[in-house]
């Protein structure tokens, strides 16, 4: 990486940023802090926020609002998870003209105005139609309560001298109602009632207008609920029929309006989405303004460029400004937070996914991906120990690569990891006789492949697991020593973990009887240990022991897969003996059991394989905490520039 500093006339700012974005190789950094530098303080000013940011945000909101309206009326078909991962539709690419700057903002404003104009009327109509549907529905609900009354609804309400009231009340209150009405109105009333359900009645009360207030107040105490119906004619049944007719009409009108919106959506959706994406790219560019510093007529832009892209970036800036600029390139110094770009050969590149999960290495740190990939495959396969499960993993991985992997790098990486883990598991599984547990061993050819029986040679399996652990930890220690020496940190190289490399031959020589040679190594190891870790030395020893013992999980989880596969086979074979129903059940148990065992143990092998790297291996040499190299780039998801 090289640090790139560009000093150019303010007028070139936008074209420079656009040029860099098109190149996609410059990671812009925040230079506004330089204003606090006492030497530069009088020269530099902070760069103002781009005035366009606000306008872009408002346009973005407007576009999203319109797209939401379209989504509501004409939803995009969605793919289910399985389909999206294994057999997705190819993403649709929309062709568009290159458009940016003030011109883009103007065009977007125009589009928003146009589409807003198109949808405003249908949306408003739709709203009032829906309101009326709700009102009519409510009225219909009320009428349903009074269908048993044979009255003309036009009489309900206030007349010249009398009022006609409608309402429902509990059936047992009917007599009380009558009594109360007699009292209040001095017997000048009419009460007609009919049952609506088992315990409720609907009642018409006619009384003089002057009594209405008192009547309503009293009836309410008897749990009378007034039904307010106005502006209707005919019997309740006739009124319901006319409401039903109206509702039908409204429904048709509603569908027509929705059809209009769907039409508009189909016509305009792509246009809106296309411009939304152009706007995003524009915003990315404009947002960077606050990272710059400026003098009266000059802007200063700072960023990082990978060494192999330097010439191109410099040439781009020079040609944009016609040479009227200063481009300064410097090596990173110790205080710089230099962004990190992982570079691995194609197959290993997929495993960067697993490195990223832990955290990116620091700049100048070791990229552990090359070491992680083989270790992970070995551990995964030892813990899954079944060739058939390996085959399932391989097939799933291939499906991922050929399905979602075509359009999504992460799915592709996942597919490559899974299928290569599958291949490794097929090999280890064949060697250890795992073919759906011992099921496949009935075939002689498969039995001949088997060189190791984990269920029988249990102690040997444990020793192999620990030996692998010891080797793995040693690799970690060696990487650390080599890397620290390369980086010129000699004391760290010697003092951190080197003691462990001396302690092992020391112990071996002692055990083999070369006591003095053994002692020499042990003394060196102890000196390194005490020199490097002082009072904490003891914990170094226990820590390393714990780390190596932790690899015993390779054996325990390997046996777990084999053991459960064996259990499934035992259960299935017991059922197989008891008639045709037993055979059916045996097949079901066999399939279901092995799928379950595969899922649960593939997941276990995955996380424990990672854990052995993250916790036992990485701690020996790896420093994470790097910043990802994120260049300013033109990244389009759905559009293709013509």
């Amino acid at each position, binding site marked *: 990486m090289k640090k790139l500093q560009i000093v150019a006339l303010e007028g070139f700012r936008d074209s420079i940023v656009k040029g860099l974005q098109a190149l996609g190789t410059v990671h812009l950094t925040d230079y506004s802090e330089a204003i606090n530098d006492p030497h530069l303080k009088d020269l530099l000013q902070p760069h103002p926020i781009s005035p366009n940011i606000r306008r872009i945000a408002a346009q973005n909101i407007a576009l999203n609002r319109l797209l939401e309206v379209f989504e509501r009326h004409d939803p995009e078909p969605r793919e289910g*998870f399985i389909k999206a991962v294994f057999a997705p539709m190819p993403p649709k690419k929309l062709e568009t003209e290159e458009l940016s700057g003030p011109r883009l903002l103007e065009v977007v404003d125009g589009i928003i105005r146009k589409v807003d104009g198109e949808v405003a009327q249908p949306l408003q109509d739709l709203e009032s139609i829906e309101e009326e549907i709700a009102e009519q529905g409510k009225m219909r609900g009320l009428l349903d309560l009074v269908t048993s009354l044979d009255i003309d609804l036009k009489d309900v309400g206030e007349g010249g001298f009398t009022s006609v009231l409608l309402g429902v009340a509990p059936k047992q209150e009917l007599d009380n109602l009558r009594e109360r009405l007699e009292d209040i109105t001095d017997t000048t009333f009419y009460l007609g009632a009919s049952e609506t359900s088992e315990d409720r009645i609907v009642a018409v009360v006619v009384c003089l207008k002057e009594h209405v207030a008192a009547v309503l107040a009293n009836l309410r105490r008897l749990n009378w609920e007034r039904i307010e119906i106005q502006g209707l004619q005919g019997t309740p049944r006739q009124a319901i029929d006319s409401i039903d007719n109206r509702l039908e009409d409204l429904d048709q009108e509603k569908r027509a309006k929705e059809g209009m919106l769907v039409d508009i959506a189909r016509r305009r959706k792509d246009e809106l989405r296309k411009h939304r994406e152009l706007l995003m790219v524009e915003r990315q560019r404009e947002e960077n303004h606050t990272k710059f510093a400026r003098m009266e007529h000059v802007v200063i832009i700072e960023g990082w460029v990978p060494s192999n892209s330097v010439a191109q970036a410099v040439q781009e800036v020079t040609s944009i400004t016609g040479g009227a600029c200063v481009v300064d390139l410097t090596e990173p110094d110790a205080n710089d937070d230099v962004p990190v770009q992982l570079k691995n050969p194609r197959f290993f590149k997929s495993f960067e996914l697993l490195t990223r*999960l*832990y955290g990116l290495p620091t700049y100048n740190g070791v990229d552990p991906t090359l070491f992680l990939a083989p270790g992970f495959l070995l551990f995964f396969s030892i813990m899954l120990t079944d060739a058939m499960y390996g085959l399932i993993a391989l097939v799933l991985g291939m499906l991922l690569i050929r399905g979602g992997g075509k359009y999504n790098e992460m799915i592709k990486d996942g597919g490559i990891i899974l299928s290569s883990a599958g291949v490794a598991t097929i090999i280890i599984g064949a060697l250890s006789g795992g073919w759906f547990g011992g099921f496949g061993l009935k075939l002689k050819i498969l039995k001949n492949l088997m060189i190791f029986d984990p*269920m*029988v040679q*249990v*102690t040997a399996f*444990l020793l192999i697991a620990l030996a692998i652990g010891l080797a793995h930890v040693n690799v970690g220690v060696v990487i650390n020593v080599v890397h620290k020496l390369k980086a010129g940190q000699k004391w760290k190289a010697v003092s951190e973990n080197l003691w462990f490399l001396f302690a092992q031959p020391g112990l071996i020589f002692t055990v083999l009887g070369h006591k003095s040679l053994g002692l020499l190594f042990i003394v060196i190891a102890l000196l390194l240990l005490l020199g490097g870790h002082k009072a904490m030395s003891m914990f170094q020893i226990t820590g390393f022991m714990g780390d190596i*013992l*932790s690899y*015993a*999980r390779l*054996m*325990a*989880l390997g*046996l*777990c897969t084999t*053991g*459960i596969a*064996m*259990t499934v086979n*035992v259960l299935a*074979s*017991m059922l197989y003996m008891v008639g045709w129903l037993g055979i059916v059940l045996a097949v079901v148990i066999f399939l279901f059991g092995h799928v379950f065992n595969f899922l*649960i143990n593939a*997941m*276990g092998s995955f*996380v*424990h394989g*990672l*854990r052995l790297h*993250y*916790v036992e291996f990485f701690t020996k040499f790896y420093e994470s905490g790097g910043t990802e190299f994120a260049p300013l780039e033109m990244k389009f998801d759905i559009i293709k520039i013509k």
Partner: protein
Amino acid sequence: MELSSGVVWAIMGAAISMGLAAIASGIGVGLAGVAGAGVISEDPKKFGPVLVLQALPQTQGIYGFLGAVLILIGVGVLGGAVKEIPVAMGYAALGGGIVIGLSSFTAVAQGAIAASGMGAVAKRPETFGQSVVLAVMAETFAIFGLLIAILIFVGTKIMGG
């Protein structure tokens, strides 16, 4: 069929292995599930990562199951004729069952870590991998428990004998 008391002790071992592991895993999965329901009530799309985190404390239950099955196969209760085994061997099987059963209580802690991990994933989905690794740490001791049990079974010829 007459059972020797050695076999009965071994069966007790299988019962303890599976029984305790079931309780512990159940509590762990429960703790995680309660948190998971909270997360998906806010964002149903997080069901996938939440489910994986909730599944982690189930592993101890599987170790318990495996331990029990290994004992049952070892003494011939499953998949063969019941063997005559000495009482001392039965005690050894019981010991193996106890170590698996007790060490499976790491599932409770794992459930709590998984629950917090779900909280982390709810706020920042990119922490999913890290959350899984944190939760898996608690499982180490259950694996050691299983390992010791297997060594007991092998050493006393319950397995492979």
